[in-house]
Every structure is written in structure tokens, then in C-alpha cells.
């Protein structure tokens, strides 16, 4: 039974529980390309969150290369894939022959203890004749095989292959990514060294310097690659590898250990089913790109997490439930929903894909159903349905049904139309509302997915690749350029996902930019990286309070107290699951007796009282805090919000003004101003403030909705279209402050 068969044949039929050959086949096929399954896997591999739309660029480029057999594919002048393969074609056959000879008779320049590894003749490969890409594929297969057997792949000098810089970069990137996935349970250095060996054989520069954009690549692609590179932590020196390898050598004595540890790592499922899961996910994702993006992000993040965890060589750890849980998360079998774990609970990956599709297409099928029920054409059928149902209804419903059947359908439609025409619901005809509904579907889906606490990265981030994005981000934040700061900080956390301060600033920037969803998502990451950080806990408490998530908010505020060095002892030692607001408030009051001069404590107390809508107490707490810290713009905003929510709009506006004096670009305060004016019925004024807020942060979705309402209340339906199309220019011109 040839390894070759395992490598190339196994990929086509992924049976659950089958051997670990699939990833090998995947690597080989991905790099050379034959099956569309692996194409999708490859799409999924290098991307993080919402690259999927950019992934289309990949698709366009890769498709010609990856479809069909290795040997014949239509040349596409502009596609990266074909250039990649053309490079192979142009190289000489003998070059590869030499490479294979080298591999056949391995030299041992660097390592001892080679004897406890797979003897080289177990590695099979194709004959040297045939087109060059076949030979290269063999070369790559041996790389893959070396991974399987724990055989270190060592650099073999090859004559120039005629690969362009761009192709080299692609090979480098792709192979390093595949290698990481392939050797997920191995030490990072080991992986890097393997890849380095591969690449130096192909004479590809392994330096980060290879990030230079090759000619003909779009800026977009470059960013995406850079993102994927930074996500994967670019290649490091191979020196550390040697030391690490020696350490790991003992464990790798048995070539099966790797396979076994794989099995342990993934439980009974094994690689194949994980592969299949991902494929089916990708298949359905392929159809629901926009909405699936943040789930992908979740999976990608947990995959990175799983990878990091998996680097611990202890087999017990590998088989731990926690790791399995994280692996499951990365496969999307489990998702977080409102701080609860929800298992998708599907036995077979295929079902998951179907169910997901069903959920997503629920809107579509409703549309069909709707059409079928002919609600548009005439409600006669609907009314009949109700009249026939009359017999089965109780008395109350009877009257209601009577009333409806009494109403002439036409009258009802007229009435509705009239109301609509008055602009109360917007100037929409039935058809328009229908369109709106369809649009809303995507928006709602996106929102609901993001509300699951997954951070959504910006698409085109100019700060990726910046030498010190964290510093830049903080600077921008201080200058009040919140949206810019967000981009810089995103670049930072892409580079260093464990930088809790990076995530915290990111969350802070989003909160001040009036986006609690993203703020929560970022703060959760900060919390993960640093569970005892008080500022993070407070921020989470605030954002959840804003989102009316009472239980979660209470949990974080209580956590603040428990983790506080001074007040940790005030509260009871057991962390009860069912926290009662009254108890927590009591603890806080006790703490305030201990140190009445602590502005932070009063601030947290203020948030707590907001949660229970004890607005007077809340305002009092914030006022106390402000006496201690009068230049804290965030406290002024909190005070204002408290007052606004208790219908003291005039006081609120004064407080917001203070906040804006201290921080002129405080988007949240601008939006709150708008809200306070609107709540007072001063719609024209509110419009101006909303527009100002939106000018600073066009992504503030809440503000867009509120603007729309205000426009309609102020009878400015002429501007409705500008609002719907988010045309800030027109709006700013029309409604200056």
C-alpha cells in the first residue's frame, strides 16, 4: 500500500475515522491542485474574518489553477494560480530529479538520532519523467510524508526553478500555512523549520522581507496576505527548531506517535471528519458569504487557539476535554450565543450544513411561502382562511376575526397605504417594503451574528504591516480619531492576538464610537487575555448594561469587585451563578464605606444603579465620582446618559456638553445628544447631532436608524433617500451644526 496512494487517493473520499492521510493529500492537492474540495479548504485556510469577500479574488485567481488535473488547465494570464503553475512548467525536469536523489539518500548535516525515524525508502514518489509539475508535486509530497513520519525535511539544493518572486512568495505562504495545519500538534519551530527546508530547496527567501508586493498584485490581495501572515505569525529562525527538535525527539521515536496524537487530539472524529466538517461548512458558507463571515472568524480564532494549545506536547493535555472543546469550537460545532455555549448538536456534518442553510434561507423560503399565499394579489384567501377558522376560535378571537372580516380588504389596504403615504412608516409602497424586508434580512443576519460576541475585522486595513501599530493606535485614540485608532489597533491585535491592552483599547475605541457590539467582542478578547483587568471588567459591565443584557452586566460588575485588590474581600467567597442585584449593590455600598474617595468605585456603582434603573442613586454616584475626577469625559457621558434615561433631558444635554468639551470627537456623546433632543420632540435639532455623530463614525448603525426616525418626524422625507443610501455628504450639507 503505497503512501502515495494514501496521499493522493485519500483526499477524494474522506471517510470519518480514516487515516490521517487526508491532510497530506490536502497539502499536496492544495499546492498542486486537483479537487475543488481542497480548493475550498485552501480558501478557508489563510483567511481570518471577513476576508471571504476578498476570498472571491482568490477564487477567481485560484480556480483556474485548482480545478482539473495537474496537467492541463487553461492558461489565464491574470490569475495568480496559473502563473504559479507556469513557473513549474518552465523549470527543467532534471532539477527535480536531483532533488529526489537527495531525498532518497538523506544526508544528516544537522541531526542525530535519525535512526529512530522512518527509513527513507518508505517514502515513495513518482518517477522523474513526466511534466515538471508532477516532479515538483512529488517533491512536495515528500515534504508532506516527512511530516507524517516525523522525518525532518532537510534543505536540498535545487537548481533555479525559474520561479518568480511572486510565485515564490505564494509557495512560501501557502506551504507555511498548510504546514501549520498539517503539523498542528507539533512545535511551532518544528513547523517553521520544515517549511524553511522546503523553501530553501526551492530557493525561496524565507525572510519577512518577502512581504514585498510582487508585481501585478493588487493592494487588496497584499493586505489580505499580510493579514493572513500576521495571523499566522510569520516564520522565525530555524535555530530554535534544533533545540526543540532534540527535546521532541524522544517522543517522535515511533512514527505512529504523530498519528496517535492526532487521534487523541481530535477524539474519535479524526482529521477526516474535521476536514469534512470544514468542507461542508465551507460549502454552505460559499452560499452565504456575507452572513457567515463572523462565524468563520470565530472558527478561525478558536482554531488559532486550538493550535496554540496543541503545542503543548503532553498527550494528556491533548486529549483533555478543554482542548476538544476548543477544537469543536473551531469546527463550528459549538457556538457562543449571549455568553452561553450552544452546541449545534448535529451528528453529521452534512446535516449541519443543511440546517445552517435552512436557517439562513428561512427568509427566502418565507418569501416563497408568502408569494404562494398570494398576500400580495389579494387578501381574499387570507380573509377566508380567517372566517373559516372562526368556528374553532374562542369568543375573544371571534370578535377580532369578525372585525377583520367586516373590514373590506380594500379599505384596509387603503388605510395602510394612506398611513404609509403620510410618511409615518416611511414613504414605501408595498413593493418597496418588500425590498426593504429582503435587505433587512441580510442586515439582521449580520447583526445577529455579530451579537454572538465575535469580533468583525475591517476589510481593508492600511495599518497592517505597520511597524508599531499599538503605539500608533493609542496615539490616534488620544487624538480623538476613533475610527483610525480602530484600524491601527486591529492591526495590532492581528499581529499579537494575546495583547490584552490592544484588545482593551480596541474595545474602548468602539464604545466611544458608539458601537457596543464590537466593543463587547473586543473586550471579551481582552478579558480572555487578562481576566483580572478591572478596566476591562468595567467596560464589559457598561456595554452590557447599554445593551440591556442585565444578567451579563451584573456578572461583570460583580467580577470587578471580586478582582479588586482592596474590595475583593468584601464580597462573599463563592461566586454564585445566580447573582442578585440587591446583594451586589450591598457589597458595593460596603466597599464605598471602606474608601469613599475612590472615583472608580463610585463609577461602577453608578453603572450598577443604572442596571436596576435606580436613576437617582446612579446620578448621585456619578456626581460623586466627578467631584473626584472632574476631567473624565467618560464619567460626564455616563452621568448624562443616566439623566437622559430618567427623562431629565435638559440636564443630560448639559452633561453631554461637558463631555464634548473634554473630548470633541466623542461620537457616543454626539449620538446621545441627538437622542436627548429627539426624546424631547426637538427633531430638527436631533437630526443635526445625529449627522455630526455619523460624520465621525459612518458605521454607527444605531444613529442611522434614529436619524431616519427623526427625519420622518420632522417631515423631512425629502432627505430620506439620502439617509437610506447613507449619503453623508448631502446630509451634512443640509443639516450643519
Amino acid at each position: 500500500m503505497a503512501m502515495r496512494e494514501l496521499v493522493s487517493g485519500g483526499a477524494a473520499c474522506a471517510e470519518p475515522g480514516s487515516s490521517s492521510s487526508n491532510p497530506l493529500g490536502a497539502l499536496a492537492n492544495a499546492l498542486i491542485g486537483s479537487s475543488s474540495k481542497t480548493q475550498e479548504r485552501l480558501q478557508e485556510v489563510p483567511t481570518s474574518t471577513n476576508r471571504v469577500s476578498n476570498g472571491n479574488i482568490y477564487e477567481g485567481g485560484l480556480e483556474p489553477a485548482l480545478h482539473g488535473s495537474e496537467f492541463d488547465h487553461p492558461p489565464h494570464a491574470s490569475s495568480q494560480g496559473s502563473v504559479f503553475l507556469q513557473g513549474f512548467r518552465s523549470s527543467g525536469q532534471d532539477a527535480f530529479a536531483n532533488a529526489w536523489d537527495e531525498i532518497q539518500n538523506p544526508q544528516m548535516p544537522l541531526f542525530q538520532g535519525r535512526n529512530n525515524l522512518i527509513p527513507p525508502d518508505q517514502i515513495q514518489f513518482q518517477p522523474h519523467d513526466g511534466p515538471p509539475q508532477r516532479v515538483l508535486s512529488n517533491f512536495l509530497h515528500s515534504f508532506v510524508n516527512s511530516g507524517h513520519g516525523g522525518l525532518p525535511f532537510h534543505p536540498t539544493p535545487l537548481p533555479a526553478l525559474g520561479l518568480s518572486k511572486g510565485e515564490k512568495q505564494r509557495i512560501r505562504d501557502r506551504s507555511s500555512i498548510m504546514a501549520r495545519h498539517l503539523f498542528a500538534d507539533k512545535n511551532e519551530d518544528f513547523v517553521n523549520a520544515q517549511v524553511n527546508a522546503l523553501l530553501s530547496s526551492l530557493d525561496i527567501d524565507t525572510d519577512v522581507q518577502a512581504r514585498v508586493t510582487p508585481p501585478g498584485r493588487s493592494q487588496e490581495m497584499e493586505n489580505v496576505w499580510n493579514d493572513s501572515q500576521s495571523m499566522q505569525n510569520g516564520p522565525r529562525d530555524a535555530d530554535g527548531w534544533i533545540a526543540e527538535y532534540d527535546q521532541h525527539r524522544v517522543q517522535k521515536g515511533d512514527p505512529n506517535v504523530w498519528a496517535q496524537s492526532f487521534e487523541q487530539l481530535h477524539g474519535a472524529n479524526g482529521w477526516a471528519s474535521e476536514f469534512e466538517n470544514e468542507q461542508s461548512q465551507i460549502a454552505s458558507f460559499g452560499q452565504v458569504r456575507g452572513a457567515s463571515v463572523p462565524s468563520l472568524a470565530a472558527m478561525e480564532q478558536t482554531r488559532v487557539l486550538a493550535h496554540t494549545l496543541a503545542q503543548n506536547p503532553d498527550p494528556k493535555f491533548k486529549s483533555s476535554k478543554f482542548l476538544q472543546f476548543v477544537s469543536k469550537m473551531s469546527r463550528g460545532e459549538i457556538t457562543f450565543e449571549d455568553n452561553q455555549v450552544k452546541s449545534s448538536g448535529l451528528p453529521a456534518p452534512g446535516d449541519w450544513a443543511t440546517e445552517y442553510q435552512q436557517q439562513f434561507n428561512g427568509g427566502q423560503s418565507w418569501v416563497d411561502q408568502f408569494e404562494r399565499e398570494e398576500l400580495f394579489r389579494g387578501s381574499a384567501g387570507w380573509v377566508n382562511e380567517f372566517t373559516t377558522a372562526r368556528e374553532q376560535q374562542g369568543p375573544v378571537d371571534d370578535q377580532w376575526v369578525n372585525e377583520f372580516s367586516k373590514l373590506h380588504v380594500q379599505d384596509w389596504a387603503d388605510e395602510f397605504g394612506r398611513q404609509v403615504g403620510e410618511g409615518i412608516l416611511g414613504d414605501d409602497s408595498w413593493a418597496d417594503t418588500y425590498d426593504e424586508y429582503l435587505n433587512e434580512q441580510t442586515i439582521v443576519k449580520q447583526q445577529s451574528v455579530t451579537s454572538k460576541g465575535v469580533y468583525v475585522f475591517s476589510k481593508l486595513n492600511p495599518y497592517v504591516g505597520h511597524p508599531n501599530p499599538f503605539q500608533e493606535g493609542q496615539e490616534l485614540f488620544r487624538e480623538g480619531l476613533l475610527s483610525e485608532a480602530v484600524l491601527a489597533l486591529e492591526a495590532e491585535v492581528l499581529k499579537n492576538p494575546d495583547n490584552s491592552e490592544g484588545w482593551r483599547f480596541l474595545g474602548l475605541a468602539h464604545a466611544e464610537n458608539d458601537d457596543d457590539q464590537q466593543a463587547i467582542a473586543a473586550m471579551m478578547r481582552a478579558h480572555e487575555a487578562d481576566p483580572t483587568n478591572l478596566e476591562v471588567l468595567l467596560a464589559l459591565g457598561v456595554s452590557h448594561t447599554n445593551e440591556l443584557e442585565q444578567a451579563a452586566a451584573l456578572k461583570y460588575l460583580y467580577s470587578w469587585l471580586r478582582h479588586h485588590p482592596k474590595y475583593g474581600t468584601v464580597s462573599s467567597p463563592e461566586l454564585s451563578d445566580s447573582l442578585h442585584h440587591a446583594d451586589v449593590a450591598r457589597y458595593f455600598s460596603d466597599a464605598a464605606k471602606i474608601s469613599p474617595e475612590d472615583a472608580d468605585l463610585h463609577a461602577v456603582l453608578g453603572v450598577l444603579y443604572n442596571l436596576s434603573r435606580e436613576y437617582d442613586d446612579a446620578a448621585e454616584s456619578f456626581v460623586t465620582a466627578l467631584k473626584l475626577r472632574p476631567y473624565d469625559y467618560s464619567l460626564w457621558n455616563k452621568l448624562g446618559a443616566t439623566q437622559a434615561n430618567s427623562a431629565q433631558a435638559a440636564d443630560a444635554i448639559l452633561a453631554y456638553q461637558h463631555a464634548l468639551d473634554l473630548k470633541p470627537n466623542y461620537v457616543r456623546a454626539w449620538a446621545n445628544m441627538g437622542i436627548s433632543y429627539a426624546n424631547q420632540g426637538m427633531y430638527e435639532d436631533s437630526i443635526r447631532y445625529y449627522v455630526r455623530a455619523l460624520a465621525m463614525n459612518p458605521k454607527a448603525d444605531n444613529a442611522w436608524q434614529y436619524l431616519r426616525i427623526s427625519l420622518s418626524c420632522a417631515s423631512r422625507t425629502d432627505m430620506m433617500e439620502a439617509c437610506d443610501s447613507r449619503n453623508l455628504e448631502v446630509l451634512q450639507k443640509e443639516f450643519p451644526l
Partner: protein
Amino acid sequence: MASNTSTSTTASSPLKAAALMEQMKLHLATDAGKALLKKIGLVYQLNIAPKKIGFNEEIYVVDLKKGEVTKGPYEGGKPDAAFSFKDDDFIKISSGKMNPQIAFMRGAMKIKGSMSAANKFTPDIFPKPSKM
């Protein structure tokens, strides 16, 4: 200021809608709220369910005739319109994220009573929450 422990019946509710109801109650005492009474002058009953319409509902009455918000079914006769929705959907409608027409078409909002009364149930009735 004297401590005002929450006397509202909404304090212990887990629903997000409860917070809005509380804000509505306070809002109706203001000038803007009073203007609303003149403009609308109807009684709405809201049946709000945490997860699924019709299950574990909390019922609120927004009386835009008298200017009151109370918890529990309407005792003073029949409300002009009664709505049933999920907590999250109610939040979306009141904040303008979801169009009430669309909500009704989708079945996210169920209506009983006078259609004209139902049509006046629009996002601008509700005061918006400010963000800390």
C-alpha cells in the same frame, strides 16, 4: 437626593423590554410625552415573550390616553390594539431597526384589534435609550 429604591414593577424583569417600559413611563410625564397623548390617544397592550411568541409573556399596557404604563393585562376594557412579539424584536421595532410593517408581514409581530390603531404604533412613540 433621597435614595429611590426602584418601586417599578419592571425592576425584577429579565426582559429588555422592561427597561424600555420604565423609560416610557418616565417619558410620558414630560412635555414630549404629553404631546404624544394628544397625537395618538390610544391604548396599546404589549405581550412580550422572552423567546417565543405566546410563551412566558409579560404583558404591559401603554396607555396613551391617560399617560400611564402598567404591567398586566388591560383592565379598563379592550385595548385599541394588542401586539405580541419577542423581546428582541420589540427592541428592534422600537429602535427603528425593524419596520413594523415588515415585522407584521414576517409574523414577528402579531396584531389584534383596530388596524388603524396598529398603524400608529411606530418607533417614534418610544423614547430612545442613551448609552453610557
